[in-house]
């Protein structure tokens, strides 16, 4: 009975884009290594089961923050959200590395009304009006997730890669647009600017449709929050880590759920 209930809850979680932890969020740029000042990239962004096939829900582009090599925030062109994916274009006139990020800061609530389980996700300022007064078992958690990818025109640069020191973030040790099959790449994960030690990190190459196994690689961050992968082959790797803590910025929320995802392109030797 309890099992059936859990399954039902899981079913709801899967059906709702709110509880996207069961699915993978990603952005895939048409290219990550660019030459020429008049080049553009076009980017797909979605939430899906398989990498990188949009089959579930489009990413929300109001969460998109694009940082140019000079540190300025730039606006994407031609944003569009369809049934299964969102797309946008990005001219990359500056030399250096652009950071593209879907930043989600919000509240997640689960509660019951007349015995019915409800879920809500939104901005902290809306939570009071969103949850009815007769709601019971209200559980609030803060969500801080970040989905990123990187594009470099010319030589890589550091200007766009400075952490915001809010939530779970990736600090490159190896430049994220300088990844080659067979070479080891190292990155650091930080939570609110401090090393995130002992965190499980997963990496999965894309094109999962064309093989029989996920071929998931896993590692754990060391005491400095650093982790490495030696990419076995070229491809668009989905790298993900998540954790939770109690350092909430909204006092009603007891728990904070943090997630970081990057799409990293590894080129052949």
């Amino acid at each position, binding site marked *: 009975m309890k099992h059936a209930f859990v399954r039902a809850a899981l079913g709801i979680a899967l*059906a709702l884009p709110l509880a996207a932890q069961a699915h993978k969020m990603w952005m895939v740029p048409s290219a990550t290594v660019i030459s020429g000042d008049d080049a553009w990239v076009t980017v797909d962004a979605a939430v899906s*089961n*398989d990498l990188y096939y949009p089959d579930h829900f489009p990413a929300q582009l109001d969460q998109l923050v694009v940082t140019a090599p000079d540190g300025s925030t730039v606006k994407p062109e031609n944003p569009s959200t369809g049934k299964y994916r969102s797309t946008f274009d990005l001219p990359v006139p500056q030399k250096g590395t652009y950071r593209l990020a879907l930043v989600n800061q919000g509240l997640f609530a689960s509660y019951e009304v007349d015995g019915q389980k409800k879920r809500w996700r939104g901005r902290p300022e809306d939570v009071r009006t969103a949850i009815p007064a007769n709601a019971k078992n209200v559980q609030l958690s803060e969500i801080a997730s970040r989905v990123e990818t990187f594009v470099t025109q010319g030589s890589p640069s550091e200007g766009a890669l400075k952490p915001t020191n809010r939530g779970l973030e990736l600090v490159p040790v190896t430049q994220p647009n300088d990844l080659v099959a067979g070479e080891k790449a190292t990155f650091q994960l930080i939570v609110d600017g401090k090393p995130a030690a002992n965190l499980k990190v997963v990496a999965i190459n894309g094109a999962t449709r064309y093989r*029989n*196994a*996920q071929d998931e690689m896993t590692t754990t961050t060391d005491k400095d929050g650093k982790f490495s992968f030696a990419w076995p082959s070229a491809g668009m790797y989905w790298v993900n880590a998540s954790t939770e803590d109690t350092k909430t910025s909204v006092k009603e929320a007891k728990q904070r759920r943090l997630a970081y995802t990057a799409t990293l392109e590894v080129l052949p030797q």
Partner: protein
Amino acid sequence: MRRILPFASCLALATPVLAADMNLTVEIPTLKVAEYHRPYVAVWIERDDHSVAANLAVWYDVKKAGGEGTKWLKDMRQWWRRSGREQTMPIDGVSGATRPAGQHQLRFSDGKPPLGTLPPGHYDLVVEAAREVGGREAQRIPFDWPAKAPVHLSASGTEELGQISLDLNP
């Protein structure tokens, strides 16, 4: 009298099944993964030319609202290509809900659906499993039908399937 007795006891053992039958055990392995969903599984019988002689079982998410569970049937891609795409789900007497890890026993009798009457010949029993955010695997067991004597056949899965055994009785 002495001559008849063994024959009679034989009859008693074999009854009530006079027709040939097959007993199949499909094992779904227990997997230690962060996110587990029960696999979709298809079981069918193929002729030598890979055409499908009988669909024996299709386990999928039958209860998902709006028939949404059919969305992943194509992930059992061999079955989908050979037979699945021609079917209207659910298939009476064949399809059912996904099953948990463990051994599942299925019994099929000659002349009765879903096996029906299989002409004598050489066939493959195929078991294919596909798991959401997991892997996909197919295993086949070649056999001759009908069996002249009781036969025990088996195949071992490596990732998404465990031990599969097929017992044929004449």
